């Protein structure tokens, strides 16, 4: 049951950079990567949206250009996780959702680094499933758990609805995600390797992090996550405003200058 997906082959970052042209340091335009990857970030709304965004040229549309990926080298995997993140934080009348905000790109970079490899966490065995009060006890590092989770999202989707996760409508996707959240989904591995709710928990928190982290980390594009929430980001001080009797509206500011609007050309 614990078979790995087709991504078994060792991933070489250098090869990937060469292929995509990221290493040239230039602007990664939608045309270049869009053409190469054939990926659209809005899932089933299709290439139309991507095209419209490019034409409209608005802030968020700019942000929707693909900044390149360092972890997800399989487009279908990235599509699956992107859609799952969108269900966690969907686009609606409050404002943009996880995909438009670039949260999947945030996750992509995190999984390639310290976070994905649990570098600062205790990963020595032996591993036992443990009680909920004892916290994460999985043998898998986050990068491995996300890969497995994506594989199992599709497996569950096929079992329940006879199609891949990304081809389902939102309600059916929610049903699958709920099965993970409630520990009912089959992760295909023993409990001491990982639990489905572990995967869901990480997916949920990574989505929120990708929506609200500083744009430095490639999510929260155009600081639109912050704008929705009225969070002004990095401000040096509030000493002259903190005694105000009413809510003070402040234009948000990213950590580094004004260029980190998340569209990859800062």
């Amino acid at each position, binding site marked *: 049951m614990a078979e790995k997906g087709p991504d078994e082959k060792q991933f070489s970052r250098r090869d990937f950079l060469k292929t995509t042209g990221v290493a040239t340091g230039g602007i990664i335009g939608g045309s270049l990567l869009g053409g190469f990857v054939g990926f659209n970030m809005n899932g089933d709304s299709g290439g139309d949206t991507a095209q419209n965004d490019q034409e409209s040229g608005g802030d968020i549309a700019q942000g929707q250009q693909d900044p390149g990926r360092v972890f997800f080298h399989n487009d279908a995997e990235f599509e699956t996780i992107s859609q799952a993140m969108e*269900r*966690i*934080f*969907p686009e*609606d009348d*409050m404002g943009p959702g996880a995909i438009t905000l670039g949260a999947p790109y945030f996750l992509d970079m995190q999984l390639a680094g*310290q*976070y994905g490899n*649990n570098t*600062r*966490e*205790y*990963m*020595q065995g*032996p591993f*036992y499933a*443990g*009680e*909920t*009060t*004892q*916290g*994460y*006890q999985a043998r898998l590092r986050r990068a491995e758990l996300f890969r497995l989770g994506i594989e199992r999202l599709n497996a569950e989707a096929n079992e329940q609805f006879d199609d891949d996760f990304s081809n389902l409508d939102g309600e059916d996707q*929610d049903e699958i*995600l709920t099965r993970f*959240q409630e520990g009912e989904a089959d992760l295909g591995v023993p409990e001491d390797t990982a639990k489905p709710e572990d995967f869901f928990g990480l997916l*949920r928190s990574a*989505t*929120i*992090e990708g929506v*609200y*982290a*500083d744009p*430095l*980390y490639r999510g929260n594009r155009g600081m639109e*996550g*912050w704008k*929705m*929430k*009225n*969070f*002004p*980001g*990095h*401000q*040096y*001080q*509030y*000493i002259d*405003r*903190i*005694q*105000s*009797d*009413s*809510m*003070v509206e402040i234009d948000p500011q990213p*950590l*580094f200058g004004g260029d980190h609007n998340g569209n990859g050309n800062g």
Partner: protein
Amino acid sequence: MATEMDRVDVVTVGVGWTGGIVAAEAAKAGLQVVGLERGRERGTEDYQHIHDEYKYAIRYELMQDVSKETLTFRNSRDQRALPMRQLGSFLLGENLGGAGTHWNGQTWRFLPYDFEIRSMTEERYGSEKLRDDDGYRVQDWGITYDELEPYFDQFEKTAGISGEENPLSGPRSNPYPTPPMMKTRILEMFEEASSNLGYDPIMMPSANLSEQFENPDGQTIAACQYCGFCERFGCEYGAKSSPEVTVIPAARETGNFEVRTHSNVVEILTDEDDDSQVTGVRYVDTRTGEEFIQPADVVVLNSYVFNNYKLLRVSDIGQQYDPETEEGTLGRNYCYQIFGGATGYFDEQFNTFMGAGALGMAFDNYNGDNFDHSDLDFLHGGNMAITQTGNRPIATNTIRPDTPSWGSEFKKESIENYTRTLRVQGQGASLPHKDNYIDLDDEYTDAYGIPLVQLTYNFTDQDVSAQKYLAEKAAEVVEEMGANEVVVDAEISDYSIVPYQSTHNTGGTVMGDDPETSVTNNWLQHWDRDNLFVVGAGSFVHNSGYNPTATVGALAYRCAEGVIRFAEEGGRLEEE
């Protein structure tokens, strides 16, 4: 073979608040001091890009690297203890300054009642109230508030604490060194509501200074800019009192203090022929792996609760506590805290993103024995407070209890409530129970091959009752503040190591006046080894309804005086 270094007068294991205080005082008194710090050097200049919630608050950049060392945890003895694989319930410090770098700065003195809790409870309610038969092990600290007051005063002056007189706290010999912080609309609402209800609100004593201050050591602490990035962050202005801006530079300026970073102490060394002394410590250079021996006339353990315990245990100093027989003192009296609060939902939007770690108002009407416990099934209580620490968007997603935790409804609720909810919370005391203790794990080891510390802990019946009581009282305040809707915290059940609660772990190496029930005397001098001192929140006999740092600081000044006196006269300090 380990390299033997030149002998020094004093070695401190760890250079945070307590190590810094002991080092500064001992070095000022002319003693040669070496501070061994397992982490790296750091200071204000390292915090220039600190306004990064993700890096610092979510991924814990400043905290202990638990890939190298963590602890194992279980709720009770019949469970298998498993490693805390990532930080959660509490955030352990590492690097120069320790957890004193990323604290909020809420600087409360414990109450006179705290130090004499057993005597005062017996006197007012009779000994039945102590519930010895239910396994509670309430005991006095072997020191009174009045004896400790001068050291509280000294710590507050060193840190430049901003505050105002608290009518429900112990008497003060001096006013706070700096005036209270600014009062904001949120704080004013709390002040009015709690005054209406007959309580005594005061501005929270703060180590985020209301104005620039030069402390008695000649160190300058800057004025707080209310940027909203205190907890889990360092201060880019040097406006939050921390060891790096106060006691460490003061110690260095004497010329008698050397900090050795990347130096992880793994053992306290003893002499086979003399079981009344220790001879120094053995440490590992964390970068090269080389081993060193640092001989010293006095050894002071200044690391965190768990590591102070661990060094004594692995060095076989003192007797491990056994929960079956209740013999042994090392590892007993481990305590944590409980939080009972309520959240109010308002139409009005507030500047919740502005703030400072200790910007708040509070009252002590339900703390300690400031209220009648005759008809209550718990002792002690908690400090009730509202704080405006600067809410940040990743961590702050307040939703009503019936809202799903993801999806459109979650998104709407969490966004709307970000600036429209206020929380009042009681920080509740926790009392020792015979089943809650620290031990060594027999399965998992750290990066140096040494067993991990094992924690066995669960909330007690008293904790459950006190939490519920404080939550209900908090709800009354929130309602009086004019909330449309008040959501009271759910009752607690089993303690979980996963969600953040507080870094206020206490006990394990407790102080006292009886070697049968404590590890050190009230000078923090080890009962078995005259030249070994152990100080920190591990010295607390129980945990109070306050943040611990002022009491830790006071004990460190007490310890420093003991170290200096011992260096001059030797012998047992309690016999004078």
